[in-house]
């Protein structure tokens, strides 16, 4: 599906997908957190409490649009868009079924790694435009963190790209073999950890860091603009889990067709739950420790993985 109208249709579709994943994601997160903390989570609203989030969304939509007096209005207004749009567009290369992706391009993997990085700009815009010290600190932390974690994340994906010999996600998923999983296990771990950091989620949520920076880069945001930050967080989590399942876990493998789509969904949901599990179990790291983890642990691990894959390819 290419061309102008195809882009519009897919944009709307991905927007709806991100919206749904936000509603289900917030609900799931509160359920997961509830079960970890010996309580129930939302359970009184219709459909197992899922409608709780629909009500929340209605509330956020109808709230007054508040601008802090000292904020730079223009940047303040567009910053949430810079967070959400890249996430929505990055979904375009995901092969949702065996042999089909909305945009089947030969540089799909590169596209996915590059486009969501634009949201660093959103974080910086949001942080600086509010002219609030908490927000500026959060914005700076977020930018530094997201840029550093790009490196191990991209390197970890490179290992699978080497094995597949292609950057086209559809072909890569078709090529995927079960023995790749043990070979690329280190890369998968690196990808998982780096994705959490890339998404600014716990235990690496230093940019929003409620106990130090109140709300980090979205301290002064409220209403629907705040909801867009949430959408980018949960949409980003879904995108990262989808991409992780496609690249590292074989996507629709071992089935194809409609059942294959279901398999992909199950893998994605499991990964998302793992993301939440990490957030609700671990304490938060300190900024300098976070940077040290990226450069001194994850990046060398990813490099070692590339060497291992190189040896395996030579040995084949």
């Amino acid at each position: 599906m290419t061309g102008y109208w195809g882009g519009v249709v897919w944009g709307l579709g991905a927007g709806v997908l991100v919206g749904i994943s936000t509603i289900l994601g917030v609900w799931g997160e509160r359920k997961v957190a509830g079960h970890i903390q010996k309580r129930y989570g939302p359970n009184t609203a219709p459909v197992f409490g899922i409608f709780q989030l629909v009500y929340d969304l209605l509330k956020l939509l109808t709230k007054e649009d508040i601008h802090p007096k000292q904020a730079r209005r223009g940047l303040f207004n567009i910053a949430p868009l810079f967070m959400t749009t890249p996430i929505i567009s990055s979904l375009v290369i995901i092969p949702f079924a065996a042999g089909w992706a909305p945009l089947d391009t030969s540089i799909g993997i590169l596209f996915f790694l590059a486009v969501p990085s634009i949201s660093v700009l959103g974080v910086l815009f949001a942080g600086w435009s509010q002219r609030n010290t908490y927000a500026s600190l959060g914005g700076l932390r977020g930018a530094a963190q997201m840029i550093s974690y790009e490196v191990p994340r991209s390197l970890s994906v490179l290992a699978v790209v080497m094995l597949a010999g292609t950057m086209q996600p559809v072909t890569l998923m078709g090529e995927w073999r079960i023995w790749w999983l043990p070979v690329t296990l280190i890369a998968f771990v690196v990808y998982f950890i780096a994705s959490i950091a890339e998404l600014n989620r716990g235990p690496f949520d230093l940019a929003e860091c409620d106990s130090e920076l109140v709300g980090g880069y979205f301290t002064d945001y409220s209403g629907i603009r705040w909801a867009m930050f949430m959408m980018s967080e949960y949409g980003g989590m879904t995108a990262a889990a989808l991409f992780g399942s496609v690249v590292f876990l074989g996507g629709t493998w071992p089935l194809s067709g409609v059942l294959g789509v279901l398999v992909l969904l199950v893998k994605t949901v499991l990964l998302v739950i793992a993301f939440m599990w990490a957030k609700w179990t671990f304490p938060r790291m300190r900024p300098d420790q976070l940077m040290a983890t990226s450069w001194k642990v994850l990046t060398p691990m990813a490099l070692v993985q590339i060497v291992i894959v190189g040896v395996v390819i030579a040995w084949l």
Partner: protein
Amino acid sequence: MTNDAQGTAAEIVSDGPSVREMVVNVGPSHPSTHGVCRIITHLDGEVVTEADLVIGYLHRGIEKIAENRTYLQVVPLTDRLDYVGSMYNNWAYSRAVEKLMGITVPERAEYLRVITCELQRVASHMMAVGSAGNDAGATSFFVLAFWIREQVVDLLARLSGSRLTYNYVRPGGVSFDIPEDGWVEDLRALCKKTPAALEELDRLFFGNVIAKDRTKGIGVLSAEDAIAAGVTGPSLRASGVDFDLRRDEPYSVYDRFSFDVVVGESGDSFERSRCRLLECYESLRIIEQALDQMEPGRTTAPSIPRLIAPPAGEVYERIESARGTLGVYLVSDGSVRPWRMKVRSPAFTNLSVVGTLAVGHTISDLVIIVGSFDPVFGEVDR
């Protein structure tokens, strides 16, 4: 100054060459100030170069109000001092009045005071440890600690009728005897099962590698500095000073129990929080022994009048609260109202070292250091 009045986040210092320094106003309304502490923080990047603590946002003038109340009316006021450990305030004040009057408290009342205050210690420490974990981002740890606290508070509510401000210990004894609804059995069951829950908490946070990285070596308070500043309680013992009023100056019936005083070594934030957790085990041991030794009898001294008028004089009584040495200095002029009441609050004294400890650490460590001292601002500001 308008910023000051509104208490909003601060300005960027842009005059002069030092544009690098940023002033961040933490508090008085901030998630990690454990109440209404305001810390004016000067940051060089993320590193704290100066931290000024501004207190007094919760000042209600309790010591002054006490001068206009009769001796028994002061007891509920003391509840509002350290609202996480109301029992201690009740007890310290009651001991001061009893000493002025020369009242002997019945033995059963003493045992009940020990039991409730040790329960209070568990409840208070769970709040302290939990919120210290929450400052490091361990939200689930916080909720699980509160789950233990909740069970303790439920028991205290069944005994005294309220969950936070008990008004239970009063001059001459305690308000109520143990209720006849299986309270003792429930307490024994709690003493049995809580150690396992504490063990789980210990492993969840203090065994976690990220938590160790975050708290070990952060805000190290040496034994000399701690003594010089008058730090008491678990914060002092974490620095390696073996001092506990319950053992060293045994008041009430504490000399009849065998328990260990938990002493740390390094005096960092990790040790301070963990000492509190370990003290909960000892508190449970004391409660079990007290339940075994307790015998039926009166719970209030006979013939305490409604309107107490102690002979003129002054007393100072101190007990070991969850935060340290809690002292009450009481001056009587022979009338029915105290002439002066002064509370020596451990949280206030402990807080005095935070500003100097935070310098050189990052702003992330600042909230951890504040949390590790377990300040309760009702007691700091009084």
